[in-house]
């Protein structure tokens, strides 16, 4: 029988069955469930597949490359913005090549359901000159992970699998295949393959360039890329990844007048596109994300009109859906009733009993004295401190930026400046910034709001648990300016007092309000009660 799996879960199962030896990841919506699935899988445990969380996407990618170096099949998973953190290793891994097959899974979030931008990871793969697999169904998620390792090993390059939110977080029936053996440990044949000294890197890079034609040929022949002929040559359609589904929703195979190319493997199958261009009057490109294919084919087609996100046939930003695709083909949509005026928005909110609430209540009181615009924050549940009734924080940019932006603002003379960061974000990218601040003795106050968990993505284990004070002291924060507090209503006065005192201090101070995430506490107590019963 088929298994009912999320796209994320199907990909994870495909990797397990495809001979995976280790997954590395930092949690991030919509990628988190891939790694969680492997962590919870009995099969993965029996096969001793390594699956614990990493401190960030860069350390995760490097570890996956190391596992590949040792001959085994590895996978690294992240959300799209994690690619920015991983980019240093990702770009260079394309030049080193791989030994065991290596998959980089980037889960993009067009529409920004849970993200600060909607960058398109396919650009990273094009930048690095490596292949991309972009599933249009949960079955393809499974198959692409299962077969992706072989593709990686065949061409000696890392392979990217690009998901988008709707495929990652949508369930469908998936047929699984027999489990492959894991690779034995083996060293790369060329002992200098991974030594990117300029001379070796130049040689490797030429090799990477030389296989681009073969990668394109693999795309032309891929079972995941398909050319469907059509009688009406007034238009040809190129539909990528999940956009293919939205197109088929409007034009099922047996009712589609136009020629169609389904694209799920890159580099773009150029010959297919040229064949279409010869036959049709214009080409419409459907892709969820940036207009990558649209720009690319405009470059190599001589005169044929190309329609898509760039000429306004489709909106330039946001997520695609069946209605947007229908509109691009002039299909009339019968929208249901309008939303009645009585309906109001319901933004996400911090949970009742959350420790961040007590921290913000105290901080808000203290900051009144200094006026607004001085609190830099970061990425986590505590970013909701920007919304009423708190309205305390003034920034949320990228992982770890709270500490470094506070430092820069303080350097400019905005004193006092405060940073609010979570425990997991601190371990991800806060420590290096703290080193900079200590070195300059910057007059900033850093609040590490520690709930002992990576909560916004569902309460994964945080790499910072149990080490924060020691890390701060080790990088040079003066011990008398490191404080641990228990954020509870009854401790409000104490918190206000410590915040006030340290904000006046003209050097680096770190305050750690620490109380377990309320959601995690509930789950832990349930689990403990269950274990007691047994």
């Amino acid at each position, binding site marked *: 029988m088929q298994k009912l799996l999320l796209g994320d879960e199907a990909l994870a199962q495909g990797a397990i069955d495809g001979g995976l030896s280790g997954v590395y990841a930092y949690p991030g919506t919509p990628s988190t469930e891939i790694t969680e699935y492997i962590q919870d899988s009995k099969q993965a445990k029996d096969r001793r597949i390594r699956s614990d969380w990493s401190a960030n996407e860069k350390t995760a990618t490097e570890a996956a490359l190391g596992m590949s170096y040792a001959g085994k099949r590895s996978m690294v998973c992240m959300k799209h913005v994690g690619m920015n953190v991983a980019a240093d290793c990702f770009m260079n891994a394309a030049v080193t090549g791989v030994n065991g097959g290596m998959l980089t899974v980037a889960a993009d979030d067009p529409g920004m359901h*849970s993200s600060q931008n909607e960058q398109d990871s396919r650009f990273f793969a094009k930048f690095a000159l490596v292949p991309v697999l972009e599933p249009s169904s949960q079955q393809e998620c499974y198959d692409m992970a299962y077969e992706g390792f072989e593709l990686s090993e065949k061409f000696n390059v890392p392979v990217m699998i690009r998901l988008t939110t709707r495929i990652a*977080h*949508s369930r469908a029936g998936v047929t699984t295949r027999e489990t492959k053996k894991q690779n034995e440990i083996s060293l790369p044949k060329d002992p200098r393959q991974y030594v990117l000294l300029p001379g070796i890197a130049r040689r490797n890079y030429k090799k990477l360039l030389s296989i681009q034609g073969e990668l394109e040929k693999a795309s032309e022949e891929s079972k995941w890329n398909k050319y469907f002929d059509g009688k009406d040559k007034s238009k040809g359609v190129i539909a990528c990844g*999940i956009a293919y589904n*939205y197109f088929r*929703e409007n034009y099922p195979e047996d009712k589609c007048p136009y020629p169609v190319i389904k694209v799920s493997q890159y580099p773009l199958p150029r010959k297919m596109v040229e064949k279409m261009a010869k036959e049709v009057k214009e080409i419409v490109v459907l892709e969820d994300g940036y207009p990558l294919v649209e720009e690319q084919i405009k470059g190599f087609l001589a005169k044929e009109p190309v329609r898509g996100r760039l000429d306004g046939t489709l909106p330039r930003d946001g997520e695609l859906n069946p209605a947007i695709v229908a509109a691009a083909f002039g299909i009339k949509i019968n929208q249901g009733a309008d939303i009645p005026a009585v*309906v109001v928005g*319901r*933004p996400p909110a911090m949970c009742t009993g959350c420790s961040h609430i007590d921290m913000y209540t105290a901080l808000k009181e203290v900051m009144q004295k200094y006026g607004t615009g001085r609190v830099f924050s970061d990425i986590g549940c505590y970013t909701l401190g920007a919304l*009423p009734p708190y309205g305390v924080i003034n920034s949320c940019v990228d992982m770890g930026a709270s500490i470094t932006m506070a430092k820069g603002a303080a350097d400019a003379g905005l004193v006092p400046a405060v940073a609010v960061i979570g425990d997991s974000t601190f371990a991800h990218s806060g420590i290096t910034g703290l080193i900079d601040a200590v070195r300059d003795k910057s007059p900033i106050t850093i609040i590490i709001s520690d709930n002992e968990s990576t909560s916004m993505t569902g309460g994964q284990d945080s790499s910072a648990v149990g080490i924060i004070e020691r890390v701060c002291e080790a990088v040079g924060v003066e011990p008398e300016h490191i404080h641990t507090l228990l954020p509870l209503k009854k401790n409000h006065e104490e918190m206000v007092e410590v915040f006030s005192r340290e904000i006046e201090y003209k050097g680096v101070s770190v305050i750690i309000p620490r109380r377990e995430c309320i959601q995690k506490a509930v789950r832990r107590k349930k689990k403990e009660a269950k274990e007691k019963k047994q």
Partner: protein
Amino acid sequence: MKIDLILCGVGGQGILSIAAALGAAALRNNLYLKQAETHGMSQRGGDVVSHMRISDKPIHSDLIPIGAADMILSVEPMEALRYLPFLSPKGYVVTNTTPFKNIPNYPSEDEIMKELKKLPNVVIIDADAIAEEMGSKRSMNIVMLGAAAPFLDMPYESFENGLRDIFGRKGDDVVNSNLAALKAGYYFSIKNRK
């Protein structure tokens, strides 16, 4: 057959367990299924929606096209109204009456009821009260599933079997209380369909 169902509520109300029971029922009938969920930040008390598509033919889009849903099944009354643009003219709204007030500007309940009662095909059910009466407050969701069942083109037994699939490992008591909740919701709809 095809069923396009918008399942909605507030993060934490557990609409995903309704989806799981429906999914199990669909699989038992050898039907195709796609179900898009909301994960991530919105789960922190924001509005959440799941697009559930069941069909005897392969399904393309993971999202239900606007104006095409056969039903909006909501565990919260204001949330039922939020997705009306998705509902087809023949579609049904089945909604719980208990408001989930986690915002300071929650509108007047009378206004919400007025809007709901204007709809041509609607079942309004106090699923919390029914669940509480039966002594299992937590099965509000399953009362809602039962209330939706008369309008969904699948045999009643397949919903029962779906519940057995997802609650079976929790023991007979849990299964039976959920089966009773399903039944209570089902008969409420039969009696009160407009």
